């Protein structure tokens, strides 16, 4: 029997708190899960720094990847024998679903920002490079790794296959919303996925939803909206993210100025020098990163030491709302005051905007910007969701931006009470 058709003697199941069970029958999928590159995802948290706000949010990209695989497996089961669906694409969809986040590194959002990396590039490199994942995929067919990479990169010719894993209503989002809600413990994020899976239909180039399932999709969009504001854009998580970014900036700056670290940062060397190869990338996970942060808590450089203490011991920056249009001159004054007080504003005065965060809202696709969610009407016509749903229309047009100013309140308050600088800083920040 060809490797691509090989089944396990008995179905394997993973117990899962969101989907109850993840079912694996294909030998290829089982082998992929066993690769070191996929196992590495156990050591990369799904929600980065959110665990400092929601203590339950310690789940990993490994959990999520299995979840996405399971959802795609169930969608495909429903698609079997329907028009537009080619069952020959089944294994490709399952493999791409399982591997879609393979290139995520530790705290990937901050790492990507500071070191100018792109996890999607690394996903591609892992799939196409000399890795165990590539060896498994190549056993299916010589061209199979490239196909999987194309689906994840959204450049595969069959757009229907791509849209299962990446569209505005895809398996990725359906898993992370429910999983993140479960692990953070919030009551938003829940929606009737069973119903959505039942009313999804394959069409040319995209997955659509039967009009009768519109309310279930409304619920999904609402939970997405609430999760963004309540979990993903949480100001305390953003504070941790700001500090993490500054740690990486500081360590890089010290490295570039030939500073002698108490422990040679071998795992970071290629990140600092801007030449990250795949081996180095795969070696750095969150356990290693946190180890360095622990060591840097006692580093001689006072800024790196302080920032690491803040991050590891959760002694985060405070924040105030900030409007860059109305408060630009105040910000410039603050910058000078911080300098005067000996608190380096490059590390301790940070404006963070919602566009700095890696999550997206539902967009109705006006002006050909992005493919929207389409409802399949009883007369077979397709209609964009927000044109049929008042609820979705209402939140599609809402103002969704937010800017906050982060700073270490303890350092400001630690300044002498007689200091005019301190008085003025507090006046600007708190009125």
């Amino acid at each position: 029997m060809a490797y691509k058709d090989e089944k396990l003697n008995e179905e394997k199941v993973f117990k899962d708190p969101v989907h109850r069970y993840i079912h694996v029958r294909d030998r290829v999928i089982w082998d992929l899960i066993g690769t070191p590159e996929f196992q590495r995802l156990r050591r990369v948290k799904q929600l980065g720094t959110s665990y400092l706000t929601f203590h339950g949010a310690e789940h990993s990209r490994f959990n999520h990847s299995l979840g996405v695989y399971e959802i795609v497996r169930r969608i495909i089961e429903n698609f079997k024998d329907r028009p537009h669906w080619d069952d020959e694409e089944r294994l490709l969809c399952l493999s791409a679903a399982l591997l879609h986040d393979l290139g995520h590194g530790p705290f990937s959002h901050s790492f990507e920002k500071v070191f100018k990396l792109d996890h999607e590039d690394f996903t591609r490199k892992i799939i196409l490079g000399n890795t165990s994942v590539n060896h498994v995929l190549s056993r299916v067919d010589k061209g199979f790794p490239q196909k999987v990479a194309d689906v994840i990169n959204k450049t595969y010719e069959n757009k229907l296959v791509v849209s299962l894993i990446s569209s505005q209503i895809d398996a990725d989002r359906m898993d992370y919303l429910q999983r993140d809600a479960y692990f953070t413990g919030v009551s938003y994020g829940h929606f009737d996925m069973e119903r959505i899976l039942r009313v999804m239909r394959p069409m040319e180039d995209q997955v659509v939803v039967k009009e009768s399932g519109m309310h279930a999709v409304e619920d999904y969009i609402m939970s997405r909206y609430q999760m963004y504001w309540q979990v993903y854009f949480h100001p305390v998580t953003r504070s941790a993210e700001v500090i993490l970014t500054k740690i990486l900036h500081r360590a890089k700056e010290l490295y570039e100025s030939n500073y002698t670290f108490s422990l040679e940062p071998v795992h970071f060397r290629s990140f600092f020098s801007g030449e990250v190869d795949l081996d180095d990338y795969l070696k750095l996970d969150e356990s290693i990163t946190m180890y360095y942060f622990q060591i840097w808590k006692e580093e001689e450089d006072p800024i790196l030491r302080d920032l690491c203490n803040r991050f590891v011991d959760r002694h985060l920056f405070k924040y105030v709302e900030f409007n860059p249009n109305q408060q630009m001159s105040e910000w410039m004054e603050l910058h000078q005051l911080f300098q005067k007080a000996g608190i380096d504003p490059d590390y301790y005065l940070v404006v963070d905007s919602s566009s700095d965060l890696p999550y997206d809202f539902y967009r109705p696709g006006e002006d050909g910007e992005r493919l929207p969610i389409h409802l399949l009407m009883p007369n077979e016509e397709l209609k964009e969701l927000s044109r049929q749903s008042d609820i979705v229309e209402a939140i599609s047009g809402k103002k969704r931006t937010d800017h906050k100013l982060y700073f270490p309140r303890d350092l400001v308050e630690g300044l002498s009470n007689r200091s005019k600088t301190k008085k003025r800083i507090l006046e600007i920040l708190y009125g």
Partner: protein
Amino acid sequence: MLTDHAKLVTFFSQCEEVIGRKKLQKMIYILKKCGYPFEERYQFHFYGPYSEELTLRVEELCNLGFLQETREKKSGYHQYRYELTGDGEEFLEHYNLEIPPMTELIEQMNGYSSRFLELVSTMMYFDTFPKDEMLEKVKTVKSSLNYTDEEIQEASDFIDKIKQ
């Protein structure tokens, strides 16, 4: 602070207006590929390279009053027009960004349709491939748009010209 926002404001300060969100997406992508220092990350989407970060950042600039967004009704759909405001100009005065002038390139791109810029940006997205593979890839991912050989040739010439 807000340097990435300021870079976008610089872009708008060097053009009179941009009509269409899709066009804006493709223009920034093409500029980025030409080496202009925009930080917005792009992924490939149904309509070619697309950056959610750019969408959100433009939304922020509008909410802050630095950009004016006008929604115009076209046959069957809405189109958006973007122009820099006085507040936007003032915001830019706080920055001393070293961005090479891009007016000429912006003007050239503004003279083309978003369909053409979609083709150009898609070709640029696959520019690590050998040329024949790149063209094959573009034809595959853009099969529904039925680009003619003339359009592809024109896009190819345009890329050669702007990359000089």
